[in-house]
């Protein structure tokens, strides 16, 4: 089954033209897809609501559609502005899925999902967004139309620029098209519900080192949820081994993934009403409970932890760094504290040079990701 999208869904020429104008006039560009993640990241130099710094917005929405999809090749190539809902539907129709199970926030596009590097509950068991990206077509900060990687599973020609685009928040280029590896959807999926002690993360540790068909593991209050996926035989036997109440309805996982679960709805209210902050904390699954007060929801067998807290950002960053992890603010900031774990020293310098190598004028999403990477003599020169 190959579906060829119509050409009037190809807006690459228009997007390249827009970037070229931005380069010529040295105007910062805010890259946007479905806008579902506008509240995430830093406000950014280019995000003033009145656009007072003269920045322009570049929307990928007119550049959409599936370019090619061949289930037997396990590869799909799509335009960045394709809505997640549409992409998931096409894959499901062929009995396949994106193995990194990305969140589907309202209106989200695949370009936005990859730029923000988002993965869902399956992540610790089957891999992350970047693991499944095979190739990209990108507009760099010089308005050049570049293609990296490809549609094949193994490719080591040139540096892996496609994967480094994932989670770069658009600061290394505008994603035009992406090729991803897809996998067959499991024959059966079910959820086990087990009683657990509050904050008992250590129970996950032995589980994830066993050859079990796990595809989700989370702890909400005093309940542990395990999701099993695979052939009917494998899932049933693992369910018997692990024990717990069996839930055939798996919608819980999507609600956590998409932040429609009660925890996240409550968090939204506390953020708006009480000035609390929601944090996403990435640590090793075996990292002990963190000394941060607030309400927790633990995903990824303890590798992704959500915290709703009143604590100041600096405390969160300090405690998380000590646990060899990193934190990201997941709600609109009440203050101008950074939204991402700050980079320091030689690592900051190296990352700034990487940014420079793609976007020497630092036009894309300036200030949105790690503002410390955007301070450069080049930017000064561009302004002059």
């Amino acid at each position, binding site marked *: 089954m190959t579906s060829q999208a119509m050409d009037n869904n190809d807006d690459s020429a228009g997007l390249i033209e827009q970037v070229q104008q931005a380069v010529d006039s040295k105007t910062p560009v805010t890259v946007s897809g479905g806008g579902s993640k506008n509240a995430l990241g830093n406000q950014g130099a280019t995000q003033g609501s009145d656009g007072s710094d003269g920045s322009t917005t570049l929307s990928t929405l007119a550049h959409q559609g599936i370019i090619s999809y061949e289930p*037997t*090749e396990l*590869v799909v190539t799509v335009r960045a502005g394709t809505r997640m809902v549409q992409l998931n539907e096409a894959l499901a129709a062929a*009995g396949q899925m994106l193995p990194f199970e990305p969140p589907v926030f309202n209106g989200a596009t695949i370009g936005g999902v990859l730029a923000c*590097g988002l993965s869902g509950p399956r*992540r610790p068991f089957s*891999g*992350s967004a*970047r*693991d499944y990206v095979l190739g990209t077509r990108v507009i760099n900060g010089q308005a*050049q139309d*570049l293609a*990296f990687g*490809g549609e*094949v*599973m*193994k*490719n*080591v*020609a*040139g*540096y*892996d*620029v496609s*994967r*480094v685009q*994932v*989670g*770069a928040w658009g600061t290394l280029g505008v994603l035009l098209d992406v090729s991803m590896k897809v996998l*067959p*959807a499991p*024959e059966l999926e079910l959820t086990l519900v087990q009683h657990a002690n509050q904050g008992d993360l250590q129970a996950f*540790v*032995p589980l994830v*080192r066993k*050859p079990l068909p796990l595809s989700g593991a989370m702890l909400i209050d005093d309940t542990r949820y395990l999701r099993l996926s*695979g*052939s009917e*035989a*494998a899932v*049933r*036997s693992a369910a018997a081994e692990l024990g717990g109440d069996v839930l055939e309805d798996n919608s819980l996982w999507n609600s956590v993934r998409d932040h429609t679960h009660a925890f996240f709805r409550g968090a939204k209210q506390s953020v708006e009403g009480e000035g609390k902050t929601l944090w996403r904390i*990435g*640590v*090793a*699954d075996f*990292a002990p409970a963190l000394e941060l007060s607030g309400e927790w929801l633990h995903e990824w067998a303890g*590798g992704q932890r959500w915290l709703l807290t009143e604590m100041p950002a600096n405390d969160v960053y300090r405690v998380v760094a000590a646990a*060899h992890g*990193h934190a990201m603010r997941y709600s609109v900031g009440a203050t101008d504290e950074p939204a991402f774990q*700050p*980079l320091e020293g*030689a*690592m900051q310098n*190296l*990352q700034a*040079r*990487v940014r420079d*190598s*793609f976007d020497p004028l630092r036009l894309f999403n300036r200030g949105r990701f790690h503002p410390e990477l955007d301070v450069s003599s080049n930017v000064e020169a561009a302004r002059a």
Partner: protein
Amino acid sequence: MSADPAFVTEASSDASILSQQQAHQRIARREKAAAELSQLVDPQAVLWSIEQLRPYESDGLTAMKATPLLVVLPETIEQVQAIMRWAHSTQTPVVARGAGTGLSGGALPHEDGILLGLAKFNQILELNPEQGFARVQPGVRNLAISDAARPHGLYYAPDPSSQIACTIGGNVAENSGGVHCLKYGLTVHNVLAVTIVTIEGDLLDVGSPGHDSAGYDLMALLTGSEGMLAVVVEVRVKLLPVPPVAKLVMAAFDTVEAAGDAVGEVIAQGIIPAGLELMDKPAIQAAEAFAKCGYPTDVAALLLCELDGIEEEVNAQVAGVSKVFEQANASSLHIAATEEERLLLWKGRKSAFPAVGRLAPDYYCIDGTIPRKQLSHVLQQMEQWSAEYKLPIANVFHAGDGNLHPLIMFDAGKPGELHRTEELGSRILQLCVEVGGTVTGEHGVGMEKINEMCVQFDANTLTQFHSVKAAFDPDGLLNPGKAVPTLQRCAEFGAMHVHHGELKFPELDRF
């Protein structure tokens, strides 16, 4: 591959082609560098006599040779840092080397540079079965990690056929794969973090013990970067539970094309085997003669299909693929009866390269990847070219991934035969690009496929690669001239096409 005889001869004969004066200057430079480096490491760890340098002249791609200024074998990270600072301040090129099993000339020395051998970094620093990881030095052999993990029921998944010898540092540099990467991924999917030394001598931790880290995903850039961006001095790998059950289905076919089509059908059934390997007749016969593993030798193609996981699942999948193979007209079907037999059948596959090596004085291994649906087309075209060039080709490859390894058999002793082999290899790689694939799936570009990179990437993209390199290594001191061709070189390669390889290349310029 470089159809580049000028480079080979100039490089290999060291002083003989250089003028007397140049040779003297070189010796003086070598002596000075040796004296300076002997201040930084044990003088015994600085090799600089021609006899000592000989073993380091090439990696697994023996057609290309060069003598480095000297070889230095540090044993601590501090020494690596000091060496890098020295190289940076003296603007001396640095080529890192693991076990030297690379097949693309990635560890080919630079004549004016030092070869940084990491063989002494051979310790497993930590193996944590509870937390599922190992921290190892870069010179640790791939198989040594799995051997150490196995008593705990764990292993390191990527298993290149060279795993007895190749190092994890080399694996990271090449993003190596193995026969099991269809299901378990490549090096990039199995390495959590690395510690690197930059050309300035800075020590940086990249990646994290968790699932992601702040800032850009530099792990993605470093993995597969062929020693062009930094020197890896420590690697943290993920250990996976050994699957409780593994079963191997061996199916024989009357044509290679039928076997190729069966591969696509397996995937279409929603089954992802742990490994799915294809061998053609010359490869089967060579492997059987070498490993005596029980392959049928009168068939055109064999598929080795491994299913692993929980017993119930594996049984269902074995039934599933068996049905697919029957429907694809397999002439015979065999399921390894015992664990010994399963390992023996794999042994044949894993020793296919050296086995083919016994059929001809030399062989040349190609490493293109193509979309699976192009398998029959590309295999047929290769057969035709093989006849045209009068050079036999054996095929043994990662069919599930579409990663081809045609082995061209030749005799380097016959005048012009290496050159024709390289030309045939280059045509095959260009065909891979034409059908939507790539010039290298897992062996890297190195020096070997530098020209074919010009076919795969346009000038702007190559320039972007150079900018990435410059972000790490502004002076272009790490492994200069490899992996990404200069635009000038591509212009010359274009000319070569017109003149069928008669043009000689000037010495590579440094980026």
